[in-house]
């Protein structure tokens, strides 16, 4: 297990089929479009990240909590559950599994703080603890999650990657948790994709940018939710010999197609991120949680059936 990803529950049970994930989103997509749903989820990942920062968790704890959150929502709709309760419980459980247990009250306090302008957080200790049972069940009691950070560090060592590039790749990995790649791909593939992004894609962008003089991506504007990479890409590409890296990837005994898929998924996150405004989230949530009777007529026959 811990030594061997291939026999882990992560590999054997939690590398998912895209259809299953699409199925779970169906209900939500009746109320909001896919970009909006993605943004709402991003907002919750952001909340988990913020709380992690405030409580000074290691990145891995945040990552595990986010994976739990995602796994939960491969079986449930956002609409029929309360993502803030799910998020709080994921953090609580992840802390225990990652061996940095936090008092449940701490997490509740932080949730209240983080959700102050979005409906607050109305759950007490016993409610979160009760929900922990449901979460465990949804996770099928498979709690150990593999992350690409270790793989990245190992590969970086092997490649003698410069510290600054490693740092940037690390940030790409952080960003990757805003996408669903961790549900579909093995961690070492995600680590390779992060390297691919900084070594190949960004290196190319660097050359392009130099030619047309423009910066790439969204400029880092203070918010911790910003993609760390796009802002730094323009100078990070420098140290890497693009051609060598292309060759290095070609020589790897892995499915390069898959790395490119992951790369694309992460890059498409950055484009959604570009027009993501945190202030829009409450309205998006309201749309998602719209009462039945406010909805189209389509729902009516069903409603009558329920009464």
């Amino acid at each position, binding site marked *: *297990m811990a030594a061997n990803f291939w026999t882990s529950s992560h590999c054997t049970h939690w590398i998912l089929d895209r259809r299953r994930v699409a199925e779970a989103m169906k209900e939500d997509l009746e109320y909001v479009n896919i970009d909006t749903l993605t943004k709402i989820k991003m907002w919750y990942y952001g909340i988990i990240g913020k709380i992690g920062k405030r409580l000074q968790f290691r990145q891995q704890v945040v990552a595990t909590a986010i994976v739990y959150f995602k796994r939960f929502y491969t079986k449930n709709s956002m609409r029929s559950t309360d993502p803030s309760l799910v998020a709080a419980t994921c953090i609580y459980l992840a802390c225990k599994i990652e*061996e*940095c247990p936090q008092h449940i009250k701490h997490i509740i306090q932080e949730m209240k703080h983080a959700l102050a302008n*979005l409906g607050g957080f109305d759950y007490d200790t016993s409610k979160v603890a009760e929900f922990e049972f449901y979460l465990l069940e949804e996770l099928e009691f498979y709690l150990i999650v593999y992350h690409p950070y270790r793989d990245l560090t190992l590969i970086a060592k092997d490649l003698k990657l410069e510290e600054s590039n490693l740092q940037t790749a690390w940030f790409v990995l952080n960003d990757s948790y805003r996408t669903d790649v961790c549900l579909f791909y093995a961690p070492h593939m995600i680590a390779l994709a992060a390297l691919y992004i900084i070594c190949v894609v960004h290196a190319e962008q660097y050359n392009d940018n130099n030619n047309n003089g423009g910066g790439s991506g969204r400029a880092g504007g203070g918010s911790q939710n910003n993609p760390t990479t796009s802002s730094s890409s323009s100078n990070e590409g420098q140290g890497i010999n693009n051609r060598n890296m292309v060759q290095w990837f070609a020589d790897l005994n892995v499915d390069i197609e898959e790395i490119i898929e992951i790369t694309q998924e992460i890059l498409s996150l950055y484009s959604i991120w570009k027009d993501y405004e945190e202030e829009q989230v409450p309205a998006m949530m309201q749309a998602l949680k719209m009462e039945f009777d406010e909805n189209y007529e389509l729902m009516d026959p069903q409603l009558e059936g329920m009464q």
Partner: protein
Amino acid sequence: MEEQEEEEVQEHFDLPPMNMTEYKQKRDSCRQKIASKYDILGFISSGTYGRVYKAKSKIKDDNKEYAIKKFKPDKEGEAATYIGISQSACREIALCRELHHENIVGLEEVLLEDKSIHMVFEYAEHDLLQIIGFHSHPERKFMSEYTVKSFLWQLLNGVAYLHANWVMHRDLKPANILVTANGVVKVGDLGLARLFYKPLQPLFNGDKVVVTIWYRAPELLLGSRHYTKAIDIWAIGCIFAELITLRPIFKGEEAKVENKKTVPFQKNQLQKIFDILGNPTKERWPTIDQQPEYPNLASFRQTPNVLRSLYQQWPIKSEQGCNLLAAMLEYDPLKRITAEEALNHPYFQEDPKPGLDSFAGQPVEFPLRRITNEDKDMRATANVQKTHPVPAVKDDRLTKRPRVDA
């Protein structure tokens, strides 16, 4: 749609109150009752974290028996409100769900009922505490070398698997080493086990005391914060000696925790170790002076290492056996033999060679694990005092548990 949202941003938002009743009802209704899947045959034991029952599957083709460990509902005070699942239960579930090995007790499934976690394990008829207890009857004999060697080899095999997977057990002792009716060792009770490959977190973090005192490695007794999988090997060395002699090799008395901030210095336990292995020196353990409790060592009297002469008086005569024991009871954790190395030790090449059925060819018939009829509906929740109906011999080990959980 975008525009509409923009306008609404200025307003005060009240989301429709979220209640998860519907979600919960949906989940609750498809959850299978334990009673619909298992027949509870009886109550086995109540331990630190809960109560263990013997069960049989209701499925016709499944003739296997199971042990269901029901964790105490985590409650605060008398009111049964949820306060979250204990760190220990979390660890045990997380690790058992990943580990699959012949010599590690298998987790069949986890069930939720009655506000409690139930872990369904494969059933093991015996454990080393019970077996040692059985042999300790005055009219009975020592275990055969074949049986001891088979237990030891299988125990090492299970622990080597744990270590290869970066899992430290941290509470190896006879009671936690289960043995099936077919003589197969199953390492159990992973409630204290944890992964040690994550380099960023100090292992010391949180739980101050690990390993029942008689099996606790010298580096732990000296307050080391950087302990390693070598602590499991020390415990196995102690168990090896105990399998041979039927008595704990270092039977110290635990210094009680006086206040929660300081961990007491375990002078008595260290003395028991020094009495047999001699005082640890810088030659034997070059970094000993870096141990937090090192200054305390000055107060011990000087004693020689008598392990070999003691071993001569024991019923197993193999010199290689003594070498292996000494290698597991090495003071310096860096010099201590690893589980993998121990499996390849010459002792196991010698006759009698270890076997998969530790009981093979043995005349002894061990009594079955005793179960009682109390609480067959798994309802008991009050903090019943610990009852271990198993060993017939009185053994104060059962009440000694220095576990302090995070």
